[in-house]
Structure formats: C-alpha cells, structure tokens
C-alpha cells in the first residue's frame, strides 16, 4: 500500500482541503448569515460577525497562497 500511495502526503492534502474547502467556505457562509441578520433583521451585531468572518476568509486565502508560492 505504501508503495502505491504516499500516505503522509495524502493526509496533508486531506487536512488542507478540509480546512480550506470546508472551513473557509463555511466561514464565508457564516459571514453572509451575519450580513443578512444585520441588513434584513436589523441586528447590527451581524455586521461584526460578517466583517470578522470575511476577514478570516481573506487571511486564510492569503496564507494559503503564500504557503503555496513560497515553496
């Protein structure tokens, strides 16, 4: 099995994919939810949620790109 699959590399790919592919995506969704709570329901705290979520997403993307390109 080891001969055919680089298991450590696969594990790293899976981890990075879950964080980026699910984590950041979900964060963006949370941001949208905050935005909707603020704009449609008047809960101004929603803007804070939205702002911080989007900020984390952008940071995550920047970090990811840096990690890739600096290699």
């Amino acid at each position, binding site marked *: 099995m080891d001969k055919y699959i680089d298991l450590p590399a696969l594990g790293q790919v899976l981890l990075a994919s879950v964080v980026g592919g*699910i984590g*950041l995506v979900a964060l963006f969704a949370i*941001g949208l939810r905050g935005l909707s709570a603020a*704009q449609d329901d008047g809960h101004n705290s929603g803007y804070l949620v939205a702002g911080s979520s989007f900020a984390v997403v952008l940071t995550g993307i920047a970090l990811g790109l840096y990690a890739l390109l600096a290699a």
Partner: protein
Amino acid sequence: MDGNTVLLVTVVATALAFDFTNGFHDTANAMAASIVTGALKPKVAVALSGILNFVGAFLSLSVAATIAKGIVDSSTITLTVVFAGLIGGITWNLLTWYLGLPSSSSHALIGGVVGAAFIAGGVEAVLVDGLIAKVLIPAVLAPLVAIAIAAAGTWLTFRITAGVSARVRDRGFKIGQIGSASLLSLAHGTNDAQKTMGIITLALIANGTQSESAATPFWVVLSCAVAMGLGTYLGGWRVIRTLGKGLVEIEPAQGFTANGSSTAVILASTHFGFPLSTTQVCTGAIIGSGVGKGAAEVRWPLVGRMAGAWLITLPAAALVGAVSFALADGIGGAAGVVAVALLASAFIASIYHRSRRSSVDATNVNEDWTDYGVGPSGPAPMPVLETVLEDVS
C-alpha cells in the same frame, strides 16, 4: 534548416498545441459554475480565466521535466516518442471536447506517452508501479476526495444560510463565486502549464539543446503561458455546458462551494506533491455540491458516461500515441513526424468542422439542458457517442 531542427520545432509546436487544447478543455473547471449562475457574463468569465491562467503559469516555480518520470523509462524518451504522446493527448482532448465531456488532459498526455514508449521500448519501457501510484490511484482518489469535501461543504453551507434572505444569499454567493473561480483559474494555471513546460524542456534535453540541470528557458514559460491563456479564452463552451448545466443544475451557493473545495484540493495537492487531475477534482466537486444538496440533484447517467470516458482515457490516448509513433518512426526522422503532424491537423480540422453543426458558444451555453440537446429553439443536438460511431462506420 536541418532535419533535426525541423523535428524539434514540430515537437515544440505540437506541445504548444496540446497546451492550447488543455486551456480550452479546462476553462469549464473554473468557470462553468460562474457562467451558469450568472455570477459572471460568459465572455468576461473566459477572459478573466484566461488572464489568471496566464499569470498562474508564471507562478509555478518548480518546473521539471517530470510528466513521465517514474511512469516511463527515461531512456526510451526520444523526440518522436514525446511527439507521438502529444498527438495522443491532443486527439483525445479534441474528441472529448467535441462530445462535451470533461476529461483529464494530463491522463491523455500520459496515456499518449505510455503508448508511444510501449511501441518504442517494449513492455519494459512502461513502469507499471509508477503508473499505478502516480496515475491510476490518484485517478480514483481525486474525484472521491473532491466529492466528499464539496458535499460536506455544500451541506454545511445550506444549513448555515438556511434563514438568510434570498437577496443576500444570491448576491453574496455570486460575489464569492467570482473570488473562488478566480483562485481556481490561478491554481489551474500554476498546476497545468507546468506539464507542457516540462514536455518542451524534455524535448530540448532529448535533443541535446539543453542540459538536464539547466533551468527552464523563459521563452518556454512565456509560450506555454500564452498558449494556455489563449486556449482558455477561446472557451470550451461544450464542456462548460456539461459541467455547469448537465451534471448538476448549479445554484450560486453550490458553485461557490464547489470552486472553493476544488481550489483547496488542487493547491494542497500541488504543494504536497500528490498528483491529481484538476479536471477530475473540479468535476468531482461539482457532483459533490449536487450530492450535498440532495443526491437526486445529480444527473447520474451523465456522470456514468463521463466516468466511462475517464476509464478509457489512458488506453485510448495510448492507442493513438502508439499508432502515431509507429507511423512517425516507420517513415523515419523529421519527415515522419511532419507527416503525422499533417494527419493530425486533418483530423483536428474535421472535428472542428463537425462541431459547427451543433455549435455551442457564449450565446447559447446557458440554454435549458435537454439530454444531448440545447433546447427546442436551439441548434442541433450535441453529439452522442453512439451517433458519432454511427457516422464514422
């Protein structure tokens, strides 16, 4: 111009042609979802993708002549083998484009090279272990990983935004789509342009024009970037249609999630050195985003047909590669390569000509999907494999 130079020039030109077909075949991967949901206008989408693919090509620093390393015995690799492999790859890319089926350009290329090497060097030339480890196993794992991650992401996204107003949801995810599709185009450029750069470098080394340890010349990087960017801009509308409307009728939330997962998987795999096909990852993600909403969202028969095409990619391209090599080698030298190149051009012209009959472009890519069709008021139905075989026989 001596025979050797003609040979080299033909091989480099063929490699760039392959890069071009890779470009338009893969536009769909990044942009299909955005075009179909209206996040981006068709022409804008392909222009954006073209530019980002072009930029991405320059960002990949670790270029190496590795496309066939570990898969084919390197002593078998001559200019003619490389050429025949490229012909195999181009032919398969064009055929699957004509049928509107997303398919892996890398597998087509590898298949072509394997086929040619097999004829050139016999069974020993093909390193089966490498083939299994670097091509076959990733081919199974890549779509599965992509489907799983996209499905989970989509399910989560829908749960999280359940109470969100349609206005915010639509607008928000469409903007998100532009971002994620752009990233995906960048990732694709970084990943895929390398392959052709590697092939051209390989050809230069095999020809003795360059030593093995030298860095890839800038003109190689530039020409590959241009070929890929142009191909992307031309847009494989037929494939875009299948990926964006055929497999799953995509909503902005799904498009965003699918693109996001694909980007993450592709960037991660490039970084950690685990080879994956960008097409298979992107297609898997689209399917996953359908599953995440509900398995009934996916047109499974079309998935089946596509999976079938994926299964035969390697052998089919290998066959063409083998035949191309046999022909080119049989005639011998530069003349053989040029002769096969001319034959291939004739094939390309005929496929293009046929495709005009059921043309898909920026204006009708978003028409309602009917199995194999463009809708009652659209042009003639898209070809099905069965009817193509009928026509040919």
